[in-house]
């Protein structure tokens, strides 16, 4: 029986009075992995910050809705105070800037371990070496003595993962964990994340703009556009049979080996938050758009009991594919 770990309902996030993310409904169960996909400006990073408790430093706050972790309310600022590193942990996007350049790797690890009381009775240094070993870094003794700028991007990312799992969090949030890495290293990091989450029974939220990464590592996925969730559901289903026009266009835009001819992009560009239309935010670029789409923000429609699609024409569009959906 899976248990709900994180639950967000009708969540909205604003910065300095401007609402940048709206109507987020997401649920993550224990031990499961959810991917959040979107372009720059889709609001995925902000959502990530809301979950991990990092909105304060950019002047943001949750303006509407509910957010709970194992029943604990995460909406008030400061709600994450005792949870950092213990219940929720974040792997930041850029590993180099997330590490103090004047501090050795070992110190980063031992201070985290001490702060979280997570040395398992072994002493911080031993536990630190152990963590490095778990994330696949050999020769931990040498690495502990080094400074961040002396290590490669891949090694640093593994260290960020080690730091994030030190306190055995229930929920691990990985913000674009592979974006800054070489392709060959990306695969290793994704496999590592998958292995760790299984072994520690951690839930994971993986934020990325890379569909390939998400398909390899997650069981469910939410596709975001302009601050809202366009479509969400089981990863395989969404990627194989996308129902939202945006997801369709996104998948169609992926280059395929052996393809000859023009690459299809999505015409236009996402609007800035000040210019968001009153109705469906994708309507200006959507090839299925009708005038009624601009009247109101589309409510999510459930397809086949597992996919949620925020589009009023989802049934008609599916029919065009020759499929009947309920």
């Amino acid at each position, binding site marked *: 029986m899976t248990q709900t770990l994180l639950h967000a309902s009708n969540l909205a996030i604003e910065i300095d009075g401007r609402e940048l993310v709206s109507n987020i409904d997401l649920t993550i169960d224990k031990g499961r992995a959810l991917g959040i996909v979107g372009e720059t400006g889709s609001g995925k990073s902000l959502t990530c910050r809301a979950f991990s408790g990092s909105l304060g430093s950019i002047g943001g706050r949750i303006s509407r809705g509910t957010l709970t972790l194992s029943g604990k309310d995460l909406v008030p600022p400061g709600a994450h105070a005792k949870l950092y590193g213990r219940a929720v942990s974040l792997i930041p996007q850029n590993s180099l800037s997330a*590490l103090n350049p*004047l501090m050795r790797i070992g*110190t980063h690890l031992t*201070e985290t371990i001490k702060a979280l009381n997570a040395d398992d009775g072994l002493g911080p240094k031993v536990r630190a070496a152990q963590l490095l070993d778990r994330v696949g870094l050999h020769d931990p003794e040498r690495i502990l003595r080094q400074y961040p700028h002396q290590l490669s991007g891949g090694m640093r990312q593994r260290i960020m993962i080690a730091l994030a799992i030190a306190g055995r969090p229930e929920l691990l949030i990985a913000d674009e964990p592979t974006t800054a890495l070489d392709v060959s290293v990306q695969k290793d990091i994704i496999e590592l994340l998958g292995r760790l989450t299984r072994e520690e029974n951690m839930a994971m939220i993986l934020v990325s703009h890379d569909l390939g990464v998400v398909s390899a590592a997650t069981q469910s996925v939410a596709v975001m556009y302009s601050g809202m969730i366009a479509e969400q559901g089981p990863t395989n289903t969404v990627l194989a049979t996308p129902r939202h026009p945006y997801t369709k266009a996104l998948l169609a835009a992926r280059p395929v080996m052996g393809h000859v001819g023009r690459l299809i992009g999505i015409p236009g560009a996402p609007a800035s938050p000040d210019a968001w239309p009153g109705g469906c935010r994708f309507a200006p670029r959507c090839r299925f758009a009708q005038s009624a789409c601009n009247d109101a923000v589309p409510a999510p429609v459930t397809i086949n009991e597992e996919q949620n699609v925020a589009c009023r024409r989802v049934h008609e569009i599916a029919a065009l594919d020759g499929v009947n959906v309920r």
Partner: protein
Amino acid sequence: MITFIRTLGVRALQIALVAFFVTVGTNILVRLVPGDPAQTILGERASPAALAALRQELGLEAPLLQQIASALGKLVQGDLGTSFAHRGQDVTSLIGPALAVTGSLAAVAILFSIVGGVTVGLWIALVRGPGADLAGRLVITVLLALPSFMAGLILLYALSLRLGLAPAGGWAGTWPANAQYIWLPALALAMYLGSLIARTVRQAALDTLGQPFIEAARTRGVPRSRIVLCHVLPNAVLPVIPLVGFNAGILVGGAVTVEAVFALPGLGAQLLQSMSTRDLPVVQGIALVTAVAIVVFNLLADAVNIAADPRLRRSH
């Protein structure tokens, strides 16, 4: 290590250049400018014969290049020449004790500046009430505009003459007795550098607080106290070292004037005396010595900086 040796080389070159320029420069200037050092020493009513003899003795008759060469030659051997006013006494023995006094004044002032400046700078950055920030910035602005000797006058009046907390100038000659005479002038001298440090540390602390690794540490669960102590503090204090090195020149200039206010027997007093007796070799000697001292000081600052910032070392 390589970085350090390279820095050492650059600084050594600087010393050589500075010494060269000062020596050559003053020798040329003396020649170019109308006026006769011998005349000024012996006064208006000296006889032509006496003047000629003195000029011969001071080596002023020789051609310019020869004078310069001889001056440089002596310099390399560590000989700063002979005083015009105190005939027969070499400059080095005159300057030596004075240098020790000025040196200790500068050292104590630097200590006060660093301790005070870092504390105040951090406090303003981390307390962060808009009132404290504004007040702090205002005070710093005023102190930066205050010349050292004026700070000396004000402190002398307020703390010594009115409140009697310190002697009104003078020197004991031996340590630790000197301590009571040195702290007030050192405080006056520290006003400027301390304010500069406070401002820099405040800015560095604010910049550090905005760095991603601070937020990353917080989301890892590191407590705020540790973040301030172990992450913000070292990064905020780092720019202080090169700052002090850079301001060594201003500090020495200020030290010299503050000494004059507090009647300390340092280079300032030495200058005062040599200026009135037109004793060029002594003044020139002081210029050289202080220049070299500053470059050496900069070298020390470089060394500390390399030791403290791992990014400056060549990676293995």
